[in-house]
């Protein structure tokens, strides 16, 4: 049975590793729903967060193949219930909408979105939350004309501890 899994990968920060990791999915004809790469809590260690819909058996095998890569320190997979996760979205709207449509001001207020910048031409709203929340704001704003919209991939931390530091200390020994 397919389910949404978040794969977290701690890696060395090296050129080409994204390619190596994404090739594992491509080869198995698995669609990556979102992918982000950033610094982690450990200096010089990167963290990938990849969201896929797979059976648990398939996700286990993929994680095994990911861990096999030389520069991968550790990979995990988790269900939504086991993680705290968010996405960010930016909405660019023409400024005249803000001044002309009283309703839009209520939308922004009610959605707990932030206004990042405002000028005479446009304003930019930022919303961080669950997918359904950023989607709700999208559909609320759409009637007023979205000049641009962009949403980040999922970022996620686990409820359970990740003992990567201890693991690295052990690996260094």
């Amino acid at each position, binding site marked *: 049975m397919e389910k949404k899994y978040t794969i977290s990968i701690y*890696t*060395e920060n090296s*050129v*080409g590793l994204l*390619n*190596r990791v994404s*090739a594992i999915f491509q*080869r198995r004809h698995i669609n990556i729903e979102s992918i982000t790469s950033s610094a982690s809590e450990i200096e010089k260690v990167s963290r990938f967060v990849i969201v896929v819909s797979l059976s648990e058996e398939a996700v*286990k*095998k993929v994680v*095994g*193949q990911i*861990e*096999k890569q*030389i*520069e*991968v*320190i550790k990979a995990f997979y988790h269900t939504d219930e086991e993680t705290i996760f968010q996405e960010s979205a930016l909405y660019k709207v023409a400024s005249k909408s803000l001044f002309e449509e009283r309703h839009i001001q209520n939308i922004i207020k009610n959605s707990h979105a932030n206004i990042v910048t405002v000028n005479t031409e446009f304003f930019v709203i930022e919303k961080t939350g669950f997918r359904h929340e950023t989607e709700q704001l999208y559909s609320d704003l759409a009637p007023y004309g979205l000049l641009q919209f962009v949403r980040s991939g999922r970022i996620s931390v686990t409820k359970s501890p990740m003992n990567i530091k201890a693991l*690295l200390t052990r*690996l*260094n020994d």
Partner: protein
Amino acid sequence: MTSKKNITGSEALIHCLLEEGVDLIYGYPGGAIMPFYDELYKFQDKLQHVLTRHEQGATHAAQGFARVSGKVGVCVATSGPGATNLVTGIADAMIDSTPMVCITGQVPSHLLGSDAFQETDIIGISTPVTKWNYQITDVTEIPEIMAKAFYIARSGRPGPVLVDITKDAQFASFDFNYTPCTGVRSYKPVPKIKTTSIDAAAALIEKAEKPLIVWGQGVILGKAEAEFKAFVEQSNIPAAWTILGVSAIATDHPLNVGMVGMHGNYGPNMLTNDCDVLIAIGMRFDDRVTGNLESYAKQAKIIHLEIDPAEINKNVHADVAVLGDVKQTLPLLTEKVTAKPYTNWFAAFKKHDEIEFEKVIKNDLHPTKEGLTMGEVLKEINRASNNDAVIVSDVGQHQMIACRYARFSNSKSNITSGGLGTMGFALPAAIGAKMGAPEREVVAIIGDGGFQMTIQELGTIFQTQAAVKVVVLNNDFLGMVRQWQQLFFDKRYASTEMVNPDFVKIAEGYFLDAKRVTTREDLGSAIDEMMASDKPYFLEVCVEKEDNVFPMIPSGASVSEIRLS
């Protein structure tokens, strides 16, 4: 630690190779790797370079060298087409876990990404087929990266590593210090052994009445032949092999029950679905071994001894996974097992062997028809080599026949392209095998199709005088494809008939001793003459055109649906 003041990147590369104990490399020069070749010229007495006739040949030669010697094979090529020509050999080494380091030249770093002459993204191209790869643009990285490359290629489950070096990094100078790599923090080559897994495996074996061992190349890669033999003998369990595992123990060992897989022996395949405990040792349950997984050993408890955690439960669920290097895990298990007679179980193998002999082997090895069979050629090679040649086979019918009928007395003796099935593998691999084991007789068994994929390496044989014995089993067909067409495509022989040149004349064109055999009367003496030669020798044997290889598990069928005809 070795130090050299102010040397070029090219010279540094050579010192790295020498530090790693390399004295033989295969390759092909070209623009972006010329600084390295220029330096090589000065080190000819320490580092022999074999010029193959195609970069693919260099990879297969390096593989043959590695497989027969247990050392890392090294090959070198230029950028662009030189690098892309390595890809088939790298993919082959990846799937067959062969330790190899490939060095490719690259356009100068300021031209990267500019579509420069002979620029190709070999890092991108080789990523899915390398254990690790790296592009060096800074000369000072050379020692550390090369040390890491060798460490990664040979440690744990071995594999190919590619290092791409820009031309400017080869020209630049720096102070060279070399320290061998002893570890990479994000890479754990050998998993820690869990003693509970050993206990659990021993408990399953203890209760077994019909246990079966299936071993693979992991035994050879782990240099665990002695430990494996001790385990087999101590447990008295029948042991079957995959084509990459064969030769880890002698063919005539009484507990060796033959080959599993698509063209394996009748007994071990049928009885896979009858055993109660299957002990898989250093093998990966390839589809050519298992057939349909839905009906593979479902009745059996599976014990899987394996170094690569990603192999556990990948194709077949392991009831007990024994992670670790088999050289360490096997002795722990051997201590805990006791021999049982398994009388009825052995009798079942014998019964199946008799059926296979009657239906298949008799006709292959002792044919009464006029045409020569591939099997009788192997039988003659066994006789003339005293069951102790290194057999290097290509891909197809002759390969399956070679693996089925070649008899081995020593390990690392069956060199073949197992996972990738690379036609054209054998001729260059045999060159590398001969150089990796000069004291041994190396016989390449090749079909007329595969021979023509790397036929130009006859030039390498002539130039190096590598005393390889090349046997082409010529049936004027792409035999294995033709066999499938006959059995599964109503004999529609689409593009499988070969109109071949005079192979003997071609070999003679390369100034090699060469002979053609077409009759049974001449076969034995021709093979004797070939084996007696201390030079390279080419022998073409014209065999029956439309013979088939049996037994056969049709693609996607169960191991117990194995066909004898």
